[in-house]
């Protein structure tokens, strides 16, 4: 799965996600990616979110919308909201994955509870990227 979130100078946010799904999935299986509020969400008043991971788990928890709610209503940073959401998912339904997010103030969130997640971002003419924790 791949995804992107963007914000411009005026605070406009957009998010997208695209996937081939799971190897060996049954024909017609749909995961979280096209589910608004599950694998993708964007609201200028809260965050833009894109996810990747076990789609069935993301759908049960409503990962993208949960991240946005935590940022909007509890004031958590995108990073903390992602961590709390993935912890909740793991505890309640299992499954792993990762999430990226940008809030309306331009704060970034990058988190995952799987072993790795490839990510990158561009800002202020600089490029940052990684795949392991701490990079």
């Amino acid at each position, binding site marked *: 799965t791949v995804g992107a979130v963007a914000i411009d100078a005026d605070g406009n946010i957009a998010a997208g996600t695209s996937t*081939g799904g799971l190897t060996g999935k049954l024909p017609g299986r749909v995961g979280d990616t096209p589910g608004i509020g599950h694998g993708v969400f964007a609201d200028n008043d809260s965050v833009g979110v894109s996810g990747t991971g076990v789609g069935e788990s993301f759908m049960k928890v409503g990962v993208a919308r949960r991240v946005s709610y935590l940022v909007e209503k509890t004031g958590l940073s995108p990073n903390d909201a992602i961590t709390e959401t993935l912890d909740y998912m793991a505890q309640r339904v299992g499954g792993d994955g990762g999430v990226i997010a940008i809030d309306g103030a331009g704060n970034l969130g990058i988190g995952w509870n799987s072993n*790795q997640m490839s990510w990158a971002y561009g800002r202020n003419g600089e490029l940052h990227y990684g795949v392991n924790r701490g990079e």
Partner: protein
Amino acid sequence: LMPTILVHGGAGDIDEDMVIRKFNGTKAAVRQGYQVLMDGGSVMDAVMETIKVLEDNPAFNAGKGAALTQPGHIETDASIMRGSDLAAGSVASVSGIRNPIVAARKVLEQTPHVQLAGDSASNWAVDQGCETEDEDYFITLHQYEYWLQWLADHNMTKSTSGEYKTMNQIETMDKWKNQKS
């Protein structure tokens, strides 16, 4: 606010030989999206162009490089959402569409709906001018090997009708086929 593009290329256990390809792929995608923003493009343009780069890169499980279904075909999903007005569009289980993110955006912009699915969605996307490819384009050696391993792990084999099923399923089918009542 500083214009920013943030991407992911999938989570899980990433093979050692894939790490460099993922690094290069995500960096190329970010450069593309960031340039769109710097050139005055919208955040929707930036997200779509960024994801198109990733969909075209066989190192990622989307577009070219997508995972194979149980019978060995390609079905892809994509979605896009605009934060200014909560407009959203998505496609599910589409086949033959080179860049499903483009189809998702067309659902957002050209229909009153949020999601189109299956063959109807694929046909609609073609009518809307989305670029198409034969199924062979999407299937990479990497994903094909994953699929073969998955079949082996799940004790799947090819039935006489050409579908991949477990031996138990095939025996059950044969039993039903042989019933005369």
